[in-house]
């Protein structure tokens, strides 16, 4: 079920009505769990069983880790959880990718092996819910969270419908404690949740799908050589589209959770105003970057074993981060580009130390612009279907096409739409980089909040939406 669908509107109204009418907290949790499975099963009912199996297994393994007598057995149960979860993810998401690469490698040694292509359907949101579930056993192992005794609570924590299929990746340690006692709505919490849902839907339906998607699709779907202006516009459009699409989903999720009395943490903090790449990853898909930091980077040794080892660790983390997004080498290259940029940034920082000029406004502005440009360059590999297409777009962006051959694929109106939205996006992120949406809205005059809210609702109704899935569903 998509947030941007009439089905969800009816579903959410029914769930909210029943949820706030029921008195018993356990009954309300049962309702949320059933609703979450309906939400997920509305795509493909059989995969709801896989979701339950993942949750039930990690519930059991979490209890075994907590009950284990020695560190060896604790570790063994934790490794079992990691292995089973990643194996399931690997089978569904990376099976054909691994087979194809295995076949290619053998062919390099003269072995003609042609494995049958597995007709595997990717369960939607498997990367997200696997990490939701896995965070529990890892946190129990680390001693960060105590195991829950309620299978129902854990199943609900993993499947909670606002964040189930496209994040934020909510740690069980953050969510399970909220299930102990019935939430009490604070003043304005419900309405603030509705406003956040409106904002998220506006980002998705109007800004991502209506204003930017066509330009991005036209450029990345074009087979011939592009004019530099079109290539740049397409890449900028994608930078905005993926932000509004993904941040829109997270904002909807946070809003829906608030309406139900739950608090989810931010997943984005105005990332295109980042000054540097480590700053970018503190602002973009925060729940994934902190997951990888806590469960991969730090266990690998982090930066405790010197700069060279830290650089290697960063590259490993970004390699995995790239692969998490999709079973293709283009995603890996996207991750590695970010890895290299993070390593280079550390190198530069180790040379410049805390020199006064690094804190100057102009320096920060230039570094910020460079950060955005480099992030856009990396997006080419994230969005392009293959390296050939990515190469064509990079060639056009750098003007390396023969004169008179490049084709204009974007109309003047498309260019205006991209220009206005991206300029507005960068301006908004720059102005808001050190604050929060809550603080900004709290300071606004009431008439302005009412006017903006009405405008967003009006634009959503007028656009009507076309039921486009969120980009991150495929991950």
């Amino acid at each position: 079920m998509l947030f941007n669908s009439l089905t969800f509107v009816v579903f959410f109204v029914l769930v909210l009505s029943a949820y706030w009418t029921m008195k018993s907290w356990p009954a309300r949790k049962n309702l949320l769990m059933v609703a979450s499975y309906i939400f997920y099963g509305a795509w493909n009912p059989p995969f709801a069983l896989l979701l339950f199996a993942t949750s039930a297994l990690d519930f059991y393994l979490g209890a075994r880790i907590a009950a284990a007598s020695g560190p060896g057995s604790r570790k063994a149960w934790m490794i079992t959880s990691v292995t089973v979860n990643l194996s399931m993810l690997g089978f569904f998401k990376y099976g054909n990718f691994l087979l194809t690469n295995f076949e290619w490698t053998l062919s390099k040694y003269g072995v003609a092996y042609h494995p049958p292509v597995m007709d595997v359907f990717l369960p939607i949101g498997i990367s997200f819910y696997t990490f939701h579930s896995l965070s529990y056993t890892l946190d129990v192992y680390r001693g960060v969270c105590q195991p829950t005794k309620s299978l129902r609570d854990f199943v609900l924590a993993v499947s909670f419908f606002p964040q189930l299929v496209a994040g934020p990746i909510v740690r069980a340690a953050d969510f399970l404690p909220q299930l102990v006692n019935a939430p009490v709505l604070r003043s304005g919490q419900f309405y603030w949740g509705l406003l956040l849902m409106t904002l998220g839907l506006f980002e998705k339906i109007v800004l991502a799908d209506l204003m930017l998607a066509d330009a991005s699709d036209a450029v990345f779907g074009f087979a011939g050589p592009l004019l530099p202006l079109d290539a740049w516009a397409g890449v900028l459009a994608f930078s905005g589209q993926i932000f509004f699409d993904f941040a829109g989903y997270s904002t909807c999720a946070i809003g829906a959770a608030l309406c139900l009395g739950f608090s989810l943490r931010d997943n984005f903090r105005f990332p295109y105003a980042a000054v540097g790449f480590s700053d970018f990853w503190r602002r973009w898909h925060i729940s994934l970057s902190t997951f990888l930091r806590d469960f991969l980077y730090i266990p690998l040794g982090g930066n405790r074993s010197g700069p060279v080892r830290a650089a290697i660790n960063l590259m490993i983390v970004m390699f995995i981060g790239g692969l998490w997004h999709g079973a293709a080498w283009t995603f890996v290259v996207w991750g590695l580009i970010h890895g290299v940029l993070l390593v280079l940034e550390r190198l530069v920082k180790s040379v410049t130390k805390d020199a006064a000029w690094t804190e100057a406004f102009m320096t920060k502005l230039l570094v910020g612009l460079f950060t955005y440009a480099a992030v856009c360059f990396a997006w080419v590999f994230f969005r392009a279907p293959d390296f050939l297409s990515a190469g064509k777009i990079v060639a056009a962006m750098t003007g390396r096409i023969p004169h008179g051959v490049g084709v204009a694929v974007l109309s003047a109106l498309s260019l205006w739409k991209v220009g206005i939205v991206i300029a507005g996006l960068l301006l908004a992120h720059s102005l808001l980089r050190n604050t929060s949406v809550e603080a900004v809205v709290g300071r606004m005059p009431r008439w302005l909040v009412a006017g903006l809210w009405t405008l967003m609702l009006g634009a959503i109704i007028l656009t009507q939406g076309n039921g486009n899935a969120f980009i991150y569903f495929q991950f």
Partner: protein
Amino acid sequence: MPSSTSNFDFQRPVPDLPWRGLVLAVVLLTTVATVAWEIRARSLGYRPSLNDTSDLWADQRQAVKPDSIVIIGDSRALFDNDLDTLQQGLGQRPVQLALVGSCAYPVLENLANDETFHGTVIASVVPLMWFAPPPSPPYHNSQRALKRYAHRTLAQRSGHYLSMWLEEHLAFMNADLKLEPLLDDVPVSPRAAFHPTPVLPPDFATIDRDRRTRMWESCNVPGPLQERVKNGWLPVFTPPPPPPYVPKEAFAAGMAKAMAARFADTITAVKKIQARGGKVVFVRYPVSGELKKHEDQLTPRVGPWNGLIKATGAPGIYFEDYPELAGFTCPEWSHLSAGDSVEFTKRLLPHLQQALAP
């Protein structure tokens, strides 16, 4: 240590605002704006009517039974066939699977690959559409509908039913009045280097749940809508020039190869259906005015039509061969009016019955 046995201390902040008054104002403003927009839509001549979406098509595809009579093709098959008349004459109500601006071959292929199907296919042929190669817009339109049919989720299906209910009650739900087409009308200086793909004309028909399509009366009579629709056809029915990065000879060779492949694929699909006891009849529906001259020049009858009939061995009904079918005039050059479509179908029936006779 956060524990699952105590409440967590993290709480999202909530801005301190007079929320009840604010929400009331937003609800009032949004309601007033929506009602005003509905009144404006009706004043522009729009009435509540379904949008011809991939979901509506998928509903009909799902309704196909093994022995169904199925209409496939472009918008002429959609406008010119009266389903009631066909039902009376053929003994069962045909399933309407024709699609606006589409190449029907993927749908024919889909039916041919459906091992259970052994019914009858009435296929409208406009050569420029039938032979449109992938990834042209006509081919894409059919593929999109088929994909929806094949992969429709429960959530999408329920959303479609809710949407149909709204479309049948609100005029502003018309696809022409969405924000996207409205933005497209914003006057912007055109970009010299950009050559736009021709777009289909604005909406000028109503469609029922079984996809019976009827031209609006305002398009049947001379006037601005009829002119606007007429003016849209010639660009739509003109093949795009070769892209600058492909040599003309290579482009022409590629097109010839694609056309030959489409011939071969069509023959294969027809034979598959015939082998299961099914029938296929090709129909060329009326076309008028400048558009007829344009089509006759680009795709003369001796070329694709005759070739298709000869190669497949399937019966063909070409409107110009029969005086009773040739006497109709399409008001906007491409489709019959709602009234004429009933009369045309009555006159087409005997030819269909003859073509489909054992």
